Structure formats: structure tokens, C-alpha cells
């Protein structure tokens, strides 16, 4: 594995090539986004009683994309304006020439509607989906026991979802942020639970003998991949999100953990220590088939997460006694480190350009192109195992 301190430019070239090719394929791309040139979006202060707050949120959201530079007034390549009411944001985006790009009402509370407006601007000017309106779930031991928390990706509106006083772990949000699956020792054993976030209803969906852990929603939300040790060894299984008997995917003497789905839902990447230390493998998401080992050049690789565009797999790796985030390029089969100050449990955002990860009890948002990490400020500590909706 290449340490990026020694060859940052090479890595950036590769990532930019990947990103640029996706822009070329996008019919919605309005301008070419190159790494050194940010799209300048001028923000006319939003009107309404919550206008000042919404303007600040909009500016922060656009800046966080890493592809947009929010500027004031009419000096940008685009001009954003709008009106904030209690029921939503009426947002407009125009080109510098005055030509209208969109005029749309985003319903919801001011803050949530502003995030939707930011994502619409991001999509319009970069061609990539934004992640400002994404939800973030994670585990925190802030109150003593490990509990499940849910909030906005910018760290706002964070609240505890569970108050069980037992170990809970490995949450996975579905893409729409309507459901959450995770591991809890509520019964005394590690079992998998499914929470309906609209009703608050919680069901125990996997409670086989042994461990039931590390659930992961398929892209369409219809299936959940997980680790079960019911047959005598921790292996990856897939079961329907509406229940039923799990189908076995792996069959080894080692431990298989942390399955993550390809965006097409037909393959799984997971970690297996069948050959000694944990390594990454890709298998079909149905039935036991031959596994494809991903050579990362490092002997300890766990917790993979497949990017929404299918091109990259982020993972946790151990180098010189420290845990760092690496990225595996699916097409070129090259792996690179993208952190140098530590990190683990990466989770992609909708744009396939940012990762949320944890390091020493704090959550960070990492731009894999610029390698900049920003802390996600929440009011609580002891945070880990983030999962992000699309």
C-alpha cells in the first residue's frame, strides 16, 4: 500500500480521473468540475424570519461538498436565492447570465428544507448527488452504555434512539433513512434488530445460536446481509428484510464479518481471516461461490464499505500499529491510504467522494479527493461505527 504522504499527486490524479469520467457520463453536469477550480455559487441572503439561519446552513452545505465555493451576492457562476417559511424553502438557482436553472419548493422544517435545496444546487452544478440531507446513525458510549444515536450528517438534531443500557453495535441505515438495523445484547445475546424510524417499532429479526451481528441493508432495502455463527463459525448470510431463513454466502474456517453491498445489489464485499489475518473478499450475494480476494498490500483489512457509484471500496487497515482508512479502486485493483492520523469504520456519502469515519471517539467527514477531514461536531463523545443514508 502506498503511503500518500509520499505520493499525493499520483493518488489525486487517479481519483480525479475516476471522478471526471463520472462527470463526463452525467447528462446533468452543467460545468466541468476540476480539482482546482471550484464552482462559484453566489448566495443572495434567503428571506423570511429563519432566513439568516438558512443562508448559513446553505453556505456550509455547499462548502462541504468540496466542489462548490459559496460566495456572496452576484459574483458567482450561479446565483442562489430563496424564501424560507415555516413549511419549507422556495429556492431558485440561476446562471450568471440570468438564465433560470430551477425554481422549486422544498417542503419541511426550515433547516431540513434548506438541506434539500443545497442538494438540488449540488446536483445541478456538479452532476453529483449531494449529501446535505443525509441522516447519520452511530453508536455512542457517551452515557455509559453503548446506545444507538441518529442525527443529521452535519451533526445537528442528534438524539438517542435506544435507552437499553446494554451493548449495541454496528448500525446500518437504509438509503431512505426510514429503517435502521443493528446489533443489540438486549436479550443477553448479540441479536439483530430492525427499527422502523417512522413508527419507532422495533423487531428482533435474527436470534440464532451464536452471534448475530453486523447487519447491512441491500441498496433496495429488501435484504440484509449479516454475520451469523449458528453453523459453528462466523459466516456471512443474507436474509430478507421482512424475515425468513438466511441464505449462506461464505463457507470457510475463518471469521467473515462486515458485509457491504455493491450498488447493484448482486455482490458483497466483506472481511475474512480465513488465510490468517483479515483480508477483503468479494462474493456473489446469492449462494456460496468462489470469493475474489482484494489485494491491498496490507495484512489487516476490515470493515469495507462499497461506494454508491460502485468504483471504490473504503476499508479499515492496520499499519505500524495504527488504524487508517484505505480505498481500493475496483477497476484498477489498486489500494491507497487516505488518512495519516488514524481512522476506522468508514461509510460513504451519496456523492462517492466523502467518507464519515471515527477516530478516538469522534466522527469526521473526509473528502477523499482533497484528503481534508473535518470533525462532525456533536454534543456527545465516545462515538463510533457511523452509517449514512443516501
Amino acid at each position, binding site marked *: 500500500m502506498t503511503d500518500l504522504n509520499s505520493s499525493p499527486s499520483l493518488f489525486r490524479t487517479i481519483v480525479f480521473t475516476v471522478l471526471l469520467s463520472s462527470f463526463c457520463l452525467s447528462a446533468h453536469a452543467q460545468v466541468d468540475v476540476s480539482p482546482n477550480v471550484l464552482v462559484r455559487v453566489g448566495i443572495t441572503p434567503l428571506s423570511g424570519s429563519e432566513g439568516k439561519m438558512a443562508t448559513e446552513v446553505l453556505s456550509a452545505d455547499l462548502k462541504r461538498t468540496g466542489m462548490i465555493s459559496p460566495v456572496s451576492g452576484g459574483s458567482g457562476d450561479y446565483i442562489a436565492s430563496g424564501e424560507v417559511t415555516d413549511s419549507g424553502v422556495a429556492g431558485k438557482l440561476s446562471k450568471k447570465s440570468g438564465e433560470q436553472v430551477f425554481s422549486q419548493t422544498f417542503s419541511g422544517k426550515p433547516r431540513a428544507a434548506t438541506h434539500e435545496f443545497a442538494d438540488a444546487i449540488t446536483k445541478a452544478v456538479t452532476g453529483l448527488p449531494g449529501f446535505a440531507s443525509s441522516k447519520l446513525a452511530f453508536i455512542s458510549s457517551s452515557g455509559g452504555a453503548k446506545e444507538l444515536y441518529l442525527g443529521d450528517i452535519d451533526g445537528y438534531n442528534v438524539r438517542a434512539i435506544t435507552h437499553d443500557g446494554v451493548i449495541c*453495535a454496528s448500525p446500518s441505515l437504509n438509503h431512505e433513512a426510514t429503517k435502521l438495523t443493528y446489533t443489540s445484547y438486549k436479550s443477553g445475546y448479540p441479536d439483530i434488530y430492525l427499527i422502523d424510524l417512522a413508527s419507532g417499532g422495533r423487531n428482533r429479526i435474527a436470534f440464532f445460536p451464536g*452471534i448475530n451481528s453486523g447487519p447491512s441493508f441491500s441498496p433496495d432495502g429488501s435484504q440484509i446481509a449479516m454475520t451469523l*455463527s449458528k453453523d459453528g*463459525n*462466523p459466516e456471512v448470510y443474507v436474509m430478507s428484510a421482512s424475515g425468513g431463513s438466511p441464505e449462506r454466502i461464505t463457507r470457510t474456517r475463518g*471469521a467473515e464479518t*462486515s458485509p457491504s453491498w455493491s450498488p447493484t445489489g448482486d455482490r458483497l464485499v466483506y472481511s475474512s481471516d480465513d488465510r490468517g489475518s483479515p483480508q477483503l473478499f468479494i462474493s456473489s450475494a446469492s449462494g456460496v461461490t468462489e470469493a475474489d480476494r482484494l489485494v491491498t498490500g496490507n495484512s489487516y483489512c*476490515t*470493515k469495507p464499505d462499497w461506494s454508491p457509484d460502485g468504483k471504490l471500496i473504503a476499508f479499515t487497515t492496520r499499519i505500524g500499529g495504527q*488504524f487508517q482508512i484505505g480505498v481500493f479502486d475496483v477497476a484498477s485493483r489498486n489500494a491507497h491510504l487516505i488518512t495519516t492520523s488514524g481512522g476506522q469504520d468508514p461509510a460513504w456519502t451519496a456523492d462517492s467522494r466523502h467518507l464519515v469515519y471515527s477516530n478516538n471517539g469522534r466522527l469526521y467527514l473526509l473528502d477523499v479527493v482533497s484528503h481534508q477531514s473535518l470533525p462532525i461536531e456533536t454534543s456527545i463523545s465516545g462515538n463510533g461505527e457511523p452509517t449514512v443514508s443516501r
Partner: protein
Amino acid sequence: MNKKCLASLLIAATLALAGCDPSKSNANFTGMGPDGTPLPDNGDKVDLSGIPQNARPGGDFDPSKDVDYSKLASDTIYFAFDSSTIPGAERTKLAHVVDWLKANPNHSLFLAGHADKRGTPEYNRALGERRALAVREYLAGLGIPASTLFTISYGSDRPAEQGDSEEAYAKNRRVQIGVIIKQ
């Protein structure tokens, strides 16, 4: 050339010849019997995954309350980093566990696997389970019925020792041998 090498060559040559003769091609061919005739594929398979788990203890058994880890506390098995192999020096403890079970029949054991805090929680949970299962398989090999051996993994969530020292980590990579006190 040693005998092993010669044997390998003979097997390879036999397979090559078998491959050349269309009358011998058989998708189910699994080898030669002592009289030189192909063995039938009887569908028998070994499960490489280990001994299947028992159903969880019945009734209102609660693993966080109904297990006594104090009786065999001195037989806690310790492991190397990222390993579920029982170190040779730890195996005498398991012989002691077998002696204890002989002296205290009709007891079932609850084997609780743990990992140190380093690394991703999910892998650590599976590593703890692998360690508990390794102890279960070892005890089963010493004649203890697998049906009386239950496992749980707490991953890195229940350290014996807090702290970030190598000493603390070493004390946390363990399998506790618990005695089920209510079932």
C-alpha cells in the same frame, strides 16, 4: 527424489492418463479404491465450519446473570493479538476444566470470548466468537459433549482491564470459562 515427491508424480500421471481416456471421464469421480476401481460419489461431505452451535439454553436463562465466571476464573484462556489459536501454554488450563467437570458432573459451560479494543468492533466480535469456539472445539476433543458447551462473544465491549497498555490488551484477549448456574 523423496517418496513424497514420487507419490505426487505418480498421482499426477494417473490423473493425466485418466484425463486422456474418455471412458474414464466422470464428473463424480472422487478417487481410486484399493482394487483400482473408481470410488462412487456417495454425497458425503465434511463441514469445514466446525461443530454447529447448540440451541440457546432454554427457559428464562439470561447469559448476563445466570453464569458464574468465578469458579473457573483461574482457567481463563489468553490469546495472542488477532489470533484464535489456543497457545500451547494455555492448554493445561483446559485439562483442569475437564477434571473440574468430572468432579462436578451435570454442569454446562458458557464460554465468553473477548478481544482487545484495537480494531473494528465487528471484527473483534467475530474474533471473540472464534476464540470461544476454539475453546469449545478443544474441550469437545477432550471428550466433553459439545451439547453442554455454549458460546458468546462480547468483542471488545467487556474488557477485564481498562487502559491502552500492552499489558491491559493481553489481559483482554481471552475466553472466560463460565459455569451455567441456572438452566
